[in-house]
């Protein structure tokens, strides 16, 4: 990465650029004309696609805290090479979610109010605080990567000295707000369909975010080592897949058992719009990938892992969208479908996220597993030929 060269024009880059521009134009329209003119949100359906997208983004960003916990708190050091990509995913995810929230807020100029005007009874207030604090923690976890690039070593040492409490704090914050996204809906027992409403919403949201976070990590390790040496040895990838299967199993047990004990089995067995959405979500996102990941053959095959992990993420998205949109459609018996601008803004921000990830992966030392930090565990062995991988990433990651 010495001289600045013009990026090569590839199909994906053109598509990303178009999406980002379309999103930017739509966002401009939203800020100049208001939400009414640009979205299909109404008094009866005040939250729509963007809230679902926030849930999704935060869920994928769960890869950050799960990996930090596994490697730095539980000392599963073998997974270290994938920590930085996971932190980067989380950091970008959170920044984008904050961006979407600001677009979604009616008064973006007041977005800082929750920080000074407290209401401890509000889940939304707790989420605002967690988002802000955790984004701060993530920036601290991310800062060494940037500082390393520019060879500024002293602050890295400082950050390292305080990193343990911050990492613990970050994991706790994630636990809180990942589950709080579920708690948002505890207050609408009469609106949210019984297939999704349960007092266990926060617990279910937390369990499922771990599954999606780990699946995201597996996918990343597959994608980022497509053209080079494996970022994670296949054995470790298979282990992650095994953990995902366990988490999916726990989720299924809690979810189904809760439906049974709350006497909502009939909602599941009678065929309606809602039960169809429910079964699609459970089958594609939880049951089938669970079944797949039980097999050693799937866990060790790239195609198998791709399939299973994409299904987990798809099911996760379906679950969040069902909670945020489908499940709320029973009252007042209207169907919400997002407007073109809502979709364009969402796609634009997604494209922005992917582009930012690939650009940063090319520019910053994301694949240097061990940060330059002093300590008793200095490990000179570095199986990962980072520079070579970086060079290759520059050539291939942007291409289909």
């Amino acid at each position, binding site marked *: 990465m010495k001289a600045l060269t013009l990026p090569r024009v590839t199909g994906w880059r053109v598509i990303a650029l178009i999406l980002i521009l379309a999103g930017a134009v739509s966002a401009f329209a939203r*800020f100049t004309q*208001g*939400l009414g003119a640009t979205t299909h*949100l*109404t*008094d*009866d359906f*005040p*939250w729509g696609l963007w809230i679902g997208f926030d849930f999704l983004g935060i869920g994928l960003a769960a890869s950050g805290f799960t990996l930090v*916990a596994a490697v730095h*708190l*539980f*000392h599963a050091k*073998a997974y*270290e*090479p994938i920590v930085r990509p996971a932190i980067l995913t989380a950091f970008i995810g959170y920044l984008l979610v904050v961006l979407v929230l600001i677009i*979604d*807020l*009616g*008064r*973006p100029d*007041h*977005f800082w*109010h*929750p920080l000074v*005007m*407290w*209401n401890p*009874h*509000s*889940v*939304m*207030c*707790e989420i*605002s605080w967690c988002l802000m604090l955790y984004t701060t923690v993530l920036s601290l976890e991310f800062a060494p990567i940037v500082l390393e690039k520019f060879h500024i070593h002293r602050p890295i040492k400082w950050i390292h000295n305080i990193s343990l409490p911050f990492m*613990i704090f970050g*994991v*706790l914050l994630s*636990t*809180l707000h990942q589950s709080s996204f579920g*708690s*948002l809906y*505890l*207050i*609408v*027992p*009469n*609106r949210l369909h019984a297939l999704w409403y349960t*007092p266990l919403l926060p617990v279910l949201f937390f369990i499922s975010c771990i599954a999606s976070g780990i699946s995201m990590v597996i996918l990343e390790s597959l994608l980022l*080592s497509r053209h080079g*040496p*494996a970022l994670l*040895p*296949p*054995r470790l990838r298979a282990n992650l897949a095994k953990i995902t299967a366990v988490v999916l199993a726990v989720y299924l047990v809690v979810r189904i058992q809760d439906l049974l004990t709350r006497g909502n089995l009939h909602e599941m067995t009678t065929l309606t719009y809602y039960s169809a959405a429910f079964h699609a979500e459970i089958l594609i996102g939880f049951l089938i990938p669970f079944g797949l990941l039980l097999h050693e053959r799937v866990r060790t095959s790239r195609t198998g892992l791709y399939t299973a992990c994409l299904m987990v993420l798809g099911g996760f998205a379906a679950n969040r969208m069902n909670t945020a949109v489908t499940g709320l459609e029973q009252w007042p018996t209207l169907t919400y479908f997002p407007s073109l601008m809502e979709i364009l803004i969402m796609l634009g921000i997604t494209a922005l996220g992917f582009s930012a990830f690939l650009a940063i992966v090319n520019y910053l030392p994301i694949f240097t597993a061990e940060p330059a930090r002093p300590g*008793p*565990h200095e*490990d000179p*062995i570095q*199986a990962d030929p980072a520079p070579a991988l970086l060079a290759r990433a520059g050539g291939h990651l942007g291409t289909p």
Partner: protein
Amino acid sequence: MLEKKAMLLDITLCVGCNACQGACKEANQLPPGDETRLTLTAFTALSEHQGRFVRHLCQHCDVPTCVSVCPVGALSKSPAGPVTYDGNKCIGCRYCLQACPFHVPKYEWSSTRPSIRKCHFCAARLAVGRPTACSEACPTGATLFGDRAELLAEAGRRVAAAPDKYVPRIYGQEEVGGTSMLYLSPVPFEQIGFDTRLGKTPMPLLTMSVLSKAPNVVTVGGVLLSGIWWITNRRTEVQANEPNGRPRRPRSQGDSK
């Protein structure tokens, strides 16, 4: 001591003249017109169900859901009863629209600096000891303003005196923990558009039962994670310094393909 105010809305007495709505719009400088559902320009509305007229307005709950969900405290409950709104605090998250069990708050969707609009129980009039504009305008006494305790007693008396005229229920006495709007009806409430599945538990308790656990998650979780770190860190250290044991395994076992 400030008494909690309320209104008794006796559906048997309402003739559908819409004087309440007219007075409300005048008091709040809203464009005139008879509206049948709550909108940005109707803080109260009157709808007809099989010849009966039902007033819609903010119920001013005793434990308001909107107040509990608002992240910035833009909505607040005053001891006298009104649930009021401060647009200078509002961030426009619309959680109140989502959460209100009576679907009351309305949002200025077409504005780039939107606010919430809803009935505020004539808070300014109450503060100087005056009744609400709508109750003052009601010619038949279908909307009666007063102390909540007194109005509840009065409602009980009316139902007891004419059990064939009323269903034995005061809607708002216990719904979601009690509201400031107390309704009497000649027919079962669900037949005239009321939500009768709301239950007696104040909605905010549903959230608080979880939210109150957050401090525990932080303390217990913090100790737990620190402990795990300590143990696993110690294990790594011991492994590294084991005099006769195996040397520490290299990090990546080199099975990169």
